[in-house]
């Protein structure tokens, strides 16, 4: 799909950490997918109940709003792992070697700066709605059926926390590539042309065997 790229693997600690994080990220994305899937049933159920049985689903909007953060944010780190988050790679594709790794490193560090800030801000947003001295720990509730909102707010700092780990690994990966002058660093999304080169080389090697 759009913009995805290859992530190389080897037996280094960095690559092992990368592969340890991946199942967690994939699980997050799957949660997002399943939430979308249930959204379909919920809406189909709601419209059937309303149209044919005259008994609409109470709190329909509240349920959807509660599910949206899972749908929209839970998979963010999975998407970041292979670089699917869209970018303009015209300039980056023209670079190579240490200069490329430097650009990638700066880019990842800026993302890290943003996400660390947002993780804190999103946690605070959750914390404002959470007070266990109250029923259901709720200090903020939904409009129709007074569903506690804190669980849905908690999704965001969790997802951003995982993304923070991912960005730390990518910063390490690009930093290592920059310092060591690597050609094919592991655990980082390689832009398409680099990945193509690697694959082309791999094919040549296969042919030589």
């Amino acid at each position: 799909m759009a913009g995805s790229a290859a992530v190389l693997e080897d037996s280094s600690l960095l690559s092992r950490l990368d592969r340890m994080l991946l199942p967690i990220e994939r699980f997050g994305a799957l949660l997002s997918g399943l939430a979308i899937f249930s959204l379909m049933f919920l809406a189909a159920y709601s419209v059937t109940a309303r149209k044919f049985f005259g008994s609409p689903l109470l709190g329909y909007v509240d349920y959807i709003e509660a599910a949206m953060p899972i749908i929209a944010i839970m998979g963010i780190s999975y998407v970041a792992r292979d670089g699917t988050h869209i970018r303009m790679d015209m300039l980056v594709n023209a670079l190579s070697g240490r200069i490329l790794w430097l650009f990638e490193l700066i880019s990842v560090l800026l993302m890290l700066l943003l996400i660390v800030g947002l993780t804190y801000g999103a946690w605070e947003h959750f914390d404002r709605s959470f007070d266990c001295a109250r029923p259901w720990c709720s200090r903020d509730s939904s409009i129709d059926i007074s569903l506690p909102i804190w669980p849905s707010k908690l999704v965001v700092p969790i997802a951003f926390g995982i993304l923070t780990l991912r960005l730390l690994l990518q910063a390490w990966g690009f930093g290592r590539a920059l310092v060591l002058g690597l050609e094919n660093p592991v655990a980082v999304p390689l832009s398409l042309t680099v990945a193509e080169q690697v694959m082309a080389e791999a094919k040549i090697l296969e042919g030589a065997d």
Partner: protein
Amino acid sequence: ATEWNVSVWGKRRAFTEHVEKLAELVSEKTNGEFTMNVSYGGLSKNRENLDGISIGAFEMAQFCAGYHRDKNRVVTVLELPFLGVENLEQELAVSKAVYAHPAAAEEMEQWNAKLLMTSPMPQYNIVGTGDPRKTLAEFEGMRVRATGGIGEAFSAVGAVPTSVTATEAFQAMESGVVDTVAFAQHAHLSFGTINEADWWTANLNPGTVNCPVVVNIDAYESLSDAEREALDSSVDEALAHYLSNYAELLKRWDAVLEEKGVEKVELAPEVIAEFREKAADPIRAKWIADMESQGIPGQELYDLVVKTLAEAKSGG
């Protein structure tokens, strides 16, 4: 010079006139030293206005209690169905009394907010499409756009409250997602639900929503004495302007109904009595029990409303 950001939503309408007037008065009284920049949705989503005040994102904001009952349990007493409020002056009086209660102030303090004034609104009567619904049996299964206590009241008689946002209410009605919409008159006008309606209940008067205007406490305290004085002294004047502006709108209301061909439905007193009996008492009892169990003086707050309302009725 002090500049405050004020977060409201929608478009400028009768519902925001007191905020606009307040900004105008404060600026006049301080010779432009203290100004307010009223933003319609540019600074926050309406349901996050209290969060914004708590953070210090802006200095003044408006919100409605029913959007998030757990954030503002105390003031939801004003959204209980069938309190018997008859006009905006009475609504203003009861709101003022509740806002002055220590429990209300304390709960708002947790959000770093101070209750400044209410946005008094008339009873939320419903507009609907198709044949008028005149009995409780006809409310059964009715999809009604209503929030807070009014929503609960309708659900007590078997209707299904669905809260689409005010801006989506028209489309929800047009597409049949809801059959009826409960709004104050100004909102029926400004959100276009009146254009889609066949009828409007003139005397159902199930209750209203309560929408306070609050200020950030730190910002309020860091005002100079002159600025604070200008702000405090302008509240009553701003509300007076709001009331007279709303009165003009209500005067036009009957003409609007006629022009749009909307039938004015009067429900029989026994139907209203039955509705009140099914909705008002159980919901109030549950509300008081809920509040008391959370350490909020529910009974005291309710009694305060009743007492203030009686005084307002005998005084007016």
